[in-house]
């Protein structure tokens, strides 16, 4: 995948397939520690420990449509080639948390990319599911919680295309501000707003 935001979309879709009602996405960029952390937590059905051990193996999958599962394997490969790794914490009934780490400045690290498009796609395609997005960058942060939005926008269908378009615009603007707020570090790679694949 060309952008980490596409990996995020993919991992979140796993959570939705697992019957999650709330999915929490965290992105933490720490320049001082030269570390990027991405975590996706869902409150879906989880999985047995025996499955977790070998989860990044492409031949381990719960699916029935094909015999290989690539989502986590691809994320693990992306993290490992940037001196990072993935960690999966799961138990039946308590949901699943996938955490991926990267060396922030690693030459092979894909850009985060268009997070607004990922969130817009998720909100529009999954009306019953709630999403929390928390993005921290060197002490500053941006948070979006669709439960808050639904409360504030009472009576408005959050998944309708017009609303999602507005939301995506706001997310793009906010993330741009987040990135530009702290000087030139990493501005170039994570500031791409409109570009999509």
């Amino acid at each position, binding site marked *: 995948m060309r952008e980490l935001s596409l990996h995020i979309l993919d991992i979140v879709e796993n959570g939705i397939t697992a019957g999650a009602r709330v999915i929490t996405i965290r992105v933490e960029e720490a320049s001082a520690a030269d570390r990027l952390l991405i975590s996706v937590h869902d409150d879906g059905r989880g999985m047995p420990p025996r499955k977790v051990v070998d989860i990044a193996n492409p031949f381990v999958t719960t699916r029935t449509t094909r015999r290989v599962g690539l989502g986590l394997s691809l994320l693990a490969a992306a993290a490992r080639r940037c001196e990072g790794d993935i960690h999966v914490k799961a138990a039946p009934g308590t949901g699943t948390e996938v955490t991926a780490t990267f060396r922030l400045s690693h030459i092979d690290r894909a850009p985060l990319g268009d997070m607004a498009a990922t969130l817009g796609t998720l909100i529009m395609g999954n009306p019953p599911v709630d999403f929390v997005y928390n993005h921290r960058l060197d002490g500053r942060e941006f948070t979006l919680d669709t439960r808050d939005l639904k409360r504030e926008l009472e009576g408005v269908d959050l998944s309708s295309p*017009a609303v999602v378009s507005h939301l995506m615009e706001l997310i793009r603007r906010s993330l741009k501000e987040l990135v530009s707020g702290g000087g030139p570090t990493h501005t170039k790679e994570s500031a791409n707003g409109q570009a999509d694949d």
Partner: protein
Amino acid sequence: MAKLTIEDLKRIKEQTTKATALRQGEARVKITVHMGTCGIAAGARPVMNALMEEMAEADRQDIRVVTSGCMGMCSSEPNVTVEVLDTEPIVYQHMDPNRMRQVFRRHVLLGEVQTDFALAKI
């Protein structure tokens, strides 16, 4: 900056209340964008975003968009399934934003199946 402001939300609400007020009743068309790993890697997200723009522009209340997982036809991704009430569902293959716009305007709005892009009837 830490959160979307109340003003932002109010503005969204004002701009969209009208558009979404009528959003009820049965859907006449269901559009499924397949979002497995294969679909996402092949470009399903830009397809979804193009569809969103078309939907916002058409402002039709009887069309539903959903995402789903892989259908097992990974080599033809991105796949999009269009189900118009009382007709056979059509699976489109190798979609991109432009093909999505054409399928939306022709098939979804006018009922003309775009056989050039179709993979199969279900």
